[in-house]
Protein backbone atom coordinates (compact mmCIF):
# COMPACT_ATOMS: atom_id res chain seq x y z
CA UNK A 1 0.00 0.00 0.00
CA UNK A 2 1.22 3.47 -0.74
CA UNK A 3 0.02 7.01 -0.09
CA UNK A 4 -1.78 7.19 -3.39
CA UNK A 5 -3.81 4.11 -2.47
CA UNK A 6 -4.75 5.86 0.74
CA UNK A 7 -5.90 9.02 -1.00
CA UNK A 8 -7.75 7.03 -3.65
CA UNK A 9 -9.56 5.16 -0.89
CA UNK A 10 -10.54 8.43 0.76
CA UNK A 11 -12.42 9.27 -2.40
CA UNK A 12 -14.69 6.36 -1.55
CA UNK A 13 -15.64 7.55 1.92
CA UNK A 14 -19.27 7.05 2.83
CA UNK A 15 -21.40 9.94 1.65
CA UNK A 16 -23.06 10.58 5.00
CA UNK A 17 -19.74 11.28 6.68
CA UNK A 18 -18.61 13.56 3.87
CA UNK A 19 -21.95 15.36 3.90
CA UNK A 20 -21.67 16.04 7.62
CA UNK A 21 -18.42 17.92 7.07
CA UNK A 22 -19.79 19.56 3.97
CA UNK A 23 -22.61 21.05 6.04
CA UNK A 24 -20.13 22.36 8.59
CA UNK A 25 -18.09 24.01 5.88
CA UNK A 26 -21.08 25.70 4.30
CA UNK A 27 -22.58 26.73 7.65
CA UNK A 28 -19.48 28.80 8.30
CA UNK A 29 -20.17 30.94 5.25
CA UNK A 30 -23.79 31.46 6.10
CA UNK A 31 -22.82 32.48 9.58
CA UNK A 32 -20.35 34.94 8.16
CA UNK A 33 -23.05 36.39 5.94
CA UNK A 34 -25.41 36.81 8.87
CA UNK A 35 -22.71 38.66 10.77
CA UNK A 36 -22.14 40.89 7.80
CA UNK A 37 -25.82 41.64 7.48
CA UNK A 38 -25.98 42.56 11.13
CA UNK A 39 -23.40 45.23 10.42
CA UNK A 40 -25.21 46.28 7.28
CA UNK A 41 -25.73 49.90 8.14
CA UNK A 42 -22.03 50.71 8.31
CA UNK A 43 -21.07 48.45 5.48
CA UNK A 44 -23.76 49.76 3.18
CA UNK A 45 -22.54 53.32 3.50
CA UNK A 46 -18.95 52.34 2.84
CA UNK A 47 -19.58 50.02 -0.04
CA UNK A 48 -22.12 52.18 -1.80
CA UNK A 49 -19.58 54.97 -1.63
CA UNK A 50 -17.01 52.70 -3.21
CA UNK A 51 -19.43 51.60 -5.88
CA UNK A 52 -20.41 55.17 -6.67
CA UNK A 53 -16.76 56.15 -6.95
CA UNK A 54 -16.15 53.26 -9.30
CA UNK A 55 -19.11 54.22 -11.46
CA UNK A 56 -17.93 57.79 -11.59
CA UNK A 57 -14.53 56.70 -12.81
CA UNK A 58 -16.13 54.38 -15.34
CA UNK A 59 -18.27 57.09 -16.88
CA UNK A 60 -15.28 59.39 -16.99
CA UNK A 61 -13.75 56.90 -19.45
CA UNK A 62 -10.67 56.27 -17.37
CA UNK A 63 -8.66 53.08 -17.49
CA UNK A 64 -10.51 51.72 -14.49
CA UNK A 65 -13.25 49.88 -16.36
CA UNK A 66 -12.12 46.59 -14.87
CA UNK A 67 -12.03 48.04 -11.41
CA UNK A 68 -15.59 49.28 -11.72
CA UNK A 69 -16.77 45.88 -12.85
CA UNK A 70 -14.71 44.36 -10.09
CA UNK A 71 -16.46 46.32 -7.38
CA UNK A 72 -19.95 45.78 -8.65
CA UNK A 73 -19.68 42.27 -9.99
CA UNK A 74 -21.53 39.29 -8.63
CA UNK A 75 -19.35 37.02 -10.70
CA UNK A 76 -18.45 33.95 -8.71
CA UNK A 77 -15.18 33.64 -10.57
CA UNK A 78 -13.87 36.68 -8.82
CA UNK A 79 -14.19 34.92 -5.54
CA UNK A 80 -11.88 32.19 -6.65
CA UNK A 81 -8.85 34.34 -6.35
CA UNK A 82 -9.16 34.33 -2.60
CA UNK A 83 -7.78 31.18 -1.10
CA UNK A 84 -8.21 31.12 2.62
CA UNK A 85 -4.63 31.96 3.35
CA UNK A 86 -4.90 35.13 1.30
CA UNK A 87 -1.68 34.65 -0.62
CA UNK A 88 -3.16 34.61 -4.10
CA UNK A 89 -2.68 37.89 -5.86
CA UNK A 90 -4.78 37.49 -8.93
CA UNK A 91 -8.41 36.92 -9.71
CA UNK A 92 -10.09 36.17 -12.98
CA UNK A 93 -13.33 37.85 -13.84
CA UNK A 94 -16.12 36.41 -15.95
CA UNK A 95 -14.68 37.84 -19.12
CA UNK A 96 -11.45 35.99 -18.56
CA UNK A 97 -9.49 39.11 -17.62
CA UNK A 98 -6.85 38.55 -15.01
CA UNK A 99 -6.72 41.34 -12.50
CA UNK A 100 -4.53 41.93 -9.52
CA UNK A 101 -6.39 41.95 -6.25
CA UNK A 102 -6.82 45.50 -5.15
CA UNK A 103 -5.12 46.90 -2.10
CA UNK A 104 -5.81 50.03 -0.14
CA UNK A 105 -3.99 51.62 2.74
CA UNK A 106 -6.24 52.83 5.50
CA UNK A 107 -5.70 54.91 8.58
CA UNK A 108 -7.75 53.36 11.36
CA UNK A 109 -10.32 55.69 12.85
CA UNK A 110 -12.32 53.38 15.10
CA UNK A 111 -11.94 49.73 16.02
CA UNK A 112 -14.76 47.27 16.54
CA UNK A 113 -14.65 43.69 17.73
CA UNK A 114 -15.00 42.41 14.18
CA UNK A 115 -13.31 45.11 12.18
CA UNK A 116 -12.67 48.79 11.92
CA UNK A 117 -13.50 52.04 10.19
CA UNK A 118 -10.65 53.66 8.34
CA UNK A 119 -9.82 56.48 5.98
CA UNK A 120 -8.23 55.64 2.63
CA UNK A 121 -4.75 57.12 2.46
CA UNK A 122 -3.44 55.23 -0.56
CA UNK A 123 -5.05 52.98 -3.15
CA UNK A 124 -3.17 50.62 -5.44
CA UNK A 125 -4.00 48.29 -8.31
CA UNK A 126 -6.68 50.61 -9.61
CA UNK A 127 -8.76 49.84 -6.59
CA UNK A 128 -11.53 52.30 -7.31
CA UNK A 129 -11.20 53.88 -3.89
CA UNK A 130 -10.38 57.52 -3.53
CA UNK A 131 -8.03 58.85 -0.83
CA UNK A 132 -10.06 60.38 1.96
CA UNK A 133 -12.96 57.94 1.62
CA UNK A 134 -14.17 56.33 4.81
CA UNK A 135 -14.51 52.56 4.64
CA UNK A 136 -15.92 50.12 7.15
CA UNK A 137 -14.11 46.83 7.09
CA UNK A 138 -15.60 43.69 8.58
CA UNK A 139 -12.71 41.32 8.98
CA UNK A 140 -13.09 37.75 7.80
CA UNK A 141 -13.03 35.08 10.42
CA UNK A 142 -9.74 33.71 9.16
CA UNK A 143 -7.86 36.56 10.73
CA UNK A 144 -6.28 35.94 14.06
CA UNK A 145 -7.87 37.68 16.98
CA UNK A 146 -4.43 38.67 18.20
CA UNK A 147 -3.75 40.50 14.94
CA UNK A 148 -6.96 42.45 15.35
CA UNK A 149 -6.16 43.07 18.98
CA UNK A 150 -2.80 44.55 18.08
CA UNK A 151 -4.37 47.36 16.07
CA UNK A 152 -5.14 50.82 17.45
CA UNK A 153 -6.82 53.95 16.19
CA UNK A 154 -4.28 55.93 14.20
CA UNK A 155 -2.44 52.84 12.93
CA UNK A 156 -2.27 52.25 9.20
CA UNK A 157 -3.09 48.97 7.57
CA UNK A 158 -2.81 47.70 4.03
CA UNK A 159 -5.87 45.72 3.09
CA UNK A 160 -6.06 43.35 0.14
CA UNK A 161 -9.62 42.63 -0.76
CA UNK A 162 -12.04 41.14 -3.17
CA UNK A 163 -15.72 40.39 -3.29
CA UNK A 164 -16.67 37.59 -0.98
CA UNK A 165 -20.40 37.78 -0.93
CA UNK A 166 -22.60 38.98 -3.71
CA UNK A 167 -24.49 42.20 -3.58
CA UNK A 168 -27.86 41.75 -1.93
CA UNK A 169 -30.28 44.44 -0.97
CA UNK A 170 -27.70 47.01 -1.91
CA UNK A 171 -25.05 45.57 0.37
CA UNK A 172 -21.78 44.16 -0.81
CA UNK A 173 -19.18 42.54 1.39
CA UNK A 174 -15.52 41.91 0.81
CA UNK A 175 -13.27 39.24 2.08
CA UNK A 176 -10.13 41.01 3.16
CA UNK A 177 -6.62 40.16 4.16
CA UNK A 178 -4.36 42.44 6.14
CA UNK A 179 -0.98 42.38 4.48
CA UNK A 180 0.87 45.03 6.49
CA UNK A 181 0.28 47.33 9.40
CA UNK A 182 2.19 49.93 11.35
CA UNK A 183 2.00 52.70 13.88
Amino acid at each position, binding site marked *: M*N*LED*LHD*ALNLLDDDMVE*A*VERMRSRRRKYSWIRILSAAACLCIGVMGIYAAGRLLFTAGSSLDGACEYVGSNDQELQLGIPEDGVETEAVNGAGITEALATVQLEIITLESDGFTGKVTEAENEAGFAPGEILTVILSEELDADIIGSLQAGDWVVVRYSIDQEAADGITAYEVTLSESGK
Partner: protein
Amino acid sequence: MQDEEIVALYWQRNESAIQETQTKYNRYLTKIAYNILADLEDSKESVNDTYLAAWNSMPPHKPDRLSTYLGKITRRISIDIFRKRTCTKRQASEYALSLDELGECISAQGTPEQSVEAELLAKTINDFLRTLSEDARNTFIGRYYFLDSLREVARYCGMSESKAKSMLFRTRSGLRAYLKKEGFDI
Protein backbone atom coordinates in the same frame (compact mmCIF):
# COMPACT_ATOMS: atom_id res chain seq x y z
CA MET B 1 -32.52 25.06 -8.33
CA GLN B 2 -32.81 21.92 -6.23
CA ASP B 3 -30.39 19.04 -6.75
CA GLU B 4 -33.16 16.71 -7.91
CA GLU B 5 -34.13 19.16 -10.62
CA ILE B 6 -30.55 19.47 -11.82
CA VAL B 7 -30.13 15.71 -11.87
CA ALA B 8 -33.37 15.45 -13.82
CA LEU B 9 -31.93 17.83 -16.42
CA TYR B 10 -28.93 15.55 -16.82
CA TRP B 11 -31.24 12.60 -17.30
CA GLN B 12 -33.20 14.53 -19.90
CA ARG B 13 -29.87 15.28 -21.65
CA ASN B 14 -30.65 18.96 -21.29
CA GLU B 15 -27.44 20.97 -21.59
CA SER B 16 -28.68 23.59 -19.16
CA ALA B 17 -27.86 21.00 -16.49
CA ILE B 18 -24.22 22.01 -16.74
CA GLN B 19 -25.04 25.70 -16.48
CA GLU B 20 -27.18 25.08 -13.41
CA THR B 21 -24.46 22.95 -11.88
CA GLN B 22 -21.92 25.65 -12.51
CA THR B 23 -24.13 28.31 -10.97
CA LYS B 24 -24.68 26.32 -7.83
CA TYR B 25 -21.42 24.47 -7.29
CA ASN B 26 -18.64 26.25 -9.14
CA ARG B 27 -17.17 27.84 -6.05
CA TYR B 28 -17.51 24.72 -3.94
CA LEU B 29 -15.79 22.56 -6.54
CA THR B 30 -13.06 25.06 -7.28
CA LYS B 31 -12.19 25.21 -3.61
CA ILE B 32 -11.71 21.44 -3.56
CA ALA B 33 -9.60 21.58 -6.71
CA TYR B 34 -7.58 24.54 -5.48
CA ASN B 35 -6.75 22.77 -2.22
CA ILE B 36 -5.18 19.99 -4.26
CA LEU B 37 -3.60 21.93 -7.09
CA ALA B 38 -2.90 25.39 -5.64
CA ASP B 39 -3.28 26.81 -9.11
CA LEU B 40 -6.31 28.69 -10.35
CA GLU B 41 -6.04 27.73 -14.02
CA ASP B 42 -5.53 24.05 -13.26
CA SER B 43 -8.41 24.20 -10.80
CA LYS B 44 -10.70 25.63 -13.45
CA GLU B 45 -9.64 22.89 -15.85
CA SER B 46 -10.38 20.29 -13.21
CA VAL B 47 -13.82 21.73 -12.52
CA ASN B 48 -14.64 21.88 -16.22
CA ASP B 49 -13.63 18.25 -16.53
CA THR B 50 -15.94 17.55 -13.60
CA TYR B 51 -18.89 18.98 -15.49
CA LEU B 52 -18.03 16.80 -18.47
CA ALA B 53 -17.70 13.73 -16.26
CA ALA B 54 -21.03 14.54 -14.62
CA TRP B 55 -22.63 14.84 -18.05
CA ASN B 56 -21.21 11.49 -19.09
CA SER B 57 -22.16 9.71 -15.87
CA MET B 58 -25.76 10.88 -15.41
CA PRO B 59 -27.43 8.69 -16.52
CA PRO B 60 -26.85 5.99 -15.38
CA HIS B 61 -26.02 7.55 -12.02
CA LYS B 62 -28.67 9.38 -10.04
CA PRO B 63 -26.95 10.83 -6.96
CA ASP B 64 -28.99 11.69 -3.90
CA ARG B 65 -26.69 14.50 -2.99
CA LEU B 66 -25.19 16.22 -5.99
CA SER B 67 -22.54 18.23 -4.12
CA THR B 68 -20.91 15.12 -2.69
CA TYR B 69 -21.10 13.32 -6.01
CA LEU B 70 -19.51 16.21 -7.89
CA GLY B 71 -16.99 16.84 -5.12
CA LYS B 72 -15.70 13.29 -5.39
CA ILE B 73 -15.30 13.64 -9.14
CA THR B 74 -13.42 16.92 -8.74
CA ARG B 75 -11.21 15.45 -6.06
CA ARG B 76 -10.33 12.46 -8.22
CA ILE B 77 -9.66 14.53 -11.33
CA SER B 78 -7.60 17.07 -9.41
CA ILE B 79 -5.46 14.36 -7.85
CA ASP B 80 -4.92 12.86 -11.30
CA ILE B 81 -3.75 16.25 -12.58
CA PHE B 82 -1.51 16.63 -9.54
CA ARG B 83 0.11 13.26 -10.20
CA LYS B 84 0.90 14.20 -13.78
CA ARG B 85 2.71 17.31 -12.68
CA THR B 86 6.43 17.69 -12.32
CA CYS B 87 7.85 17.51 -8.82
CA THR B 88 8.56 21.24 -8.83
CA LYS B 89 4.96 22.15 -9.47
CA ARG B 90 3.71 19.70 -6.89
CA GLN B 91 4.85 21.78 -3.98
CA ALA B 92 2.80 23.98 -1.73
CA SER B 93 -0.72 22.63 -2.06
CA GLU B 94 -2.71 21.31 0.87
CA TYR B 95 -2.78 17.98 -0.88
CA ALA B 96 1.01 17.87 -0.95
CA LEU B 97 1.10 18.70 2.74
CA SER B 98 -1.49 16.05 3.51
CA LEU B 99 0.63 13.44 1.73
CA ASP B 100 3.43 14.17 4.16
CA GLU B 101 1.09 13.91 7.12
CA LEU B 102 -0.58 10.72 5.98
CA GLY B 103 2.87 9.25 5.36
CA GLU B 104 2.84 8.57 9.09
CA CYS B 105 0.19 5.92 8.47
CA ILE B 106 2.42 4.03 6.06
CA SER B 107 5.96 3.04 6.85
CA ALA B 108 7.36 2.94 3.33
CA GLN B 109 6.41 3.54 -0.27
CA GLY B 110 4.69 0.44 -1.55
CA THR B 111 5.47 -1.32 -4.76
CA PRO B 112 2.83 -1.79 -7.47
CA GLU B 113 2.52 -5.41 -6.36
CA GLN B 114 1.50 -4.20 -2.94
CA SER B 115 -1.21 -2.00 -4.33
CA VAL B 116 -4.47 -2.75 -2.61
CA GLU B 117 -7.98 -2.78 -3.79
CA ALA B 118 -9.35 0.68 -3.20
CA GLU B 119 -12.81 -0.52 -2.18
CA LEU B 120 -11.42 -2.79 0.51
CA LEU B 121 -9.18 -0.09 1.89
CA ALA B 122 -12.02 2.42 1.73
CA LYS B 123 -14.31 0.10 3.66
CA THR B 124 -11.66 -0.34 6.33
CA ILE B 125 -11.13 3.42 6.60
CA ASN B 126 -14.88 3.97 6.75
CA ASP B 127 -15.15 1.41 9.55
CA PHE B 128 -12.30 3.04 11.40
CA LEU B 129 -13.78 6.53 11.09
CA ARG B 130 -17.06 5.30 12.52
CA THR B 131 -15.25 4.24 15.67
CA LEU B 132 -14.08 7.82 16.24
CA SER B 133 -15.76 10.70 18.01
CA GLU B 134 -17.65 13.06 15.75
CA ASP B 135 -15.01 15.77 16.23
CA ALA B 136 -12.15 13.45 15.38
CA ARG B 137 -13.97 12.11 12.34
CA ASN B 138 -14.86 15.56 11.05
CA THR B 139 -11.37 16.97 11.46
CA PHE B 140 -9.92 13.97 9.64
CA ILE B 141 -12.34 14.27 6.73
CA GLY B 142 -11.93 18.04 6.60
CA ARG B 143 -8.18 17.76 6.46
CA TYR B 144 -7.66 14.68 4.30
CA TYR B 145 -10.76 14.48 2.15
CA PHE B 146 -11.50 18.16 1.57
CA LEU B 147 -7.81 19.04 2.01
CA ASP B 148 -8.71 22.17 3.93
CA SER B 149 -5.92 23.82 5.84
CA LEU B 150 -5.53 23.03 9.51
CA ARG B 151 -6.68 26.53 10.31
CA GLU B 152 -9.87 26.19 8.30
CA VAL B 153 -10.64 22.79 9.75
CA ALA B 154 -10.13 24.04 13.28
CA ARG B 155 -12.41 26.97 12.63
CA TYR B 156 -15.37 25.12 11.20
CA CYS B 157 -15.01 22.30 13.70
CA GLY B 158 -15.08 24.88 16.47
CA MET B 159 -11.76 24.13 18.13
CA SER B 160 -8.28 25.58 18.41
CA GLU B 161 -5.65 24.76 15.83
CA SER B 162 -3.50 23.03 18.43
CA LYS B 163 -6.39 20.83 19.47
CA ALA B 164 -7.17 19.97 15.85
CA LYS B 165 -3.52 19.22 15.21
CA SER B 166 -3.19 16.86 18.16
CA MET B 167 -6.53 15.24 17.30
CA LEU B 168 -5.33 14.59 13.76
CA PHE B 169 -2.09 13.17 15.07
CA ARG B 170 -3.96 10.73 17.30
CA THR B 171 -6.31 9.81 14.45
CA ARG B 172 -3.43 9.10 12.09
CA SER B 173 -1.77 6.92 14.73
CA GLY B 174 -5.06 5.15 15.30
CA LEU B 175 -5.55 4.60 11.59
CA ARG B 176 -2.11 3.12 11.25
CA ALA B 177 -2.79 0.68 14.08
CA TYR B 178 -6.23 -0.16 12.69
CA LEU B 179 -4.91 -0.85 9.19
CA LYS B 180 -2.21 -3.06 10.63
CA LYS B 181 -4.74 -4.95 12.73
CA GLU B 182 -6.92 -5.47 9.64
CA GLY B 183 -3.99 -7.07 7.84
CA PHE B 184 -2.85 -4.29 5.56
CA ASP B 185 0.80 -4.27 4.71
CA ILE B 186 1.93 -0.88 5.94
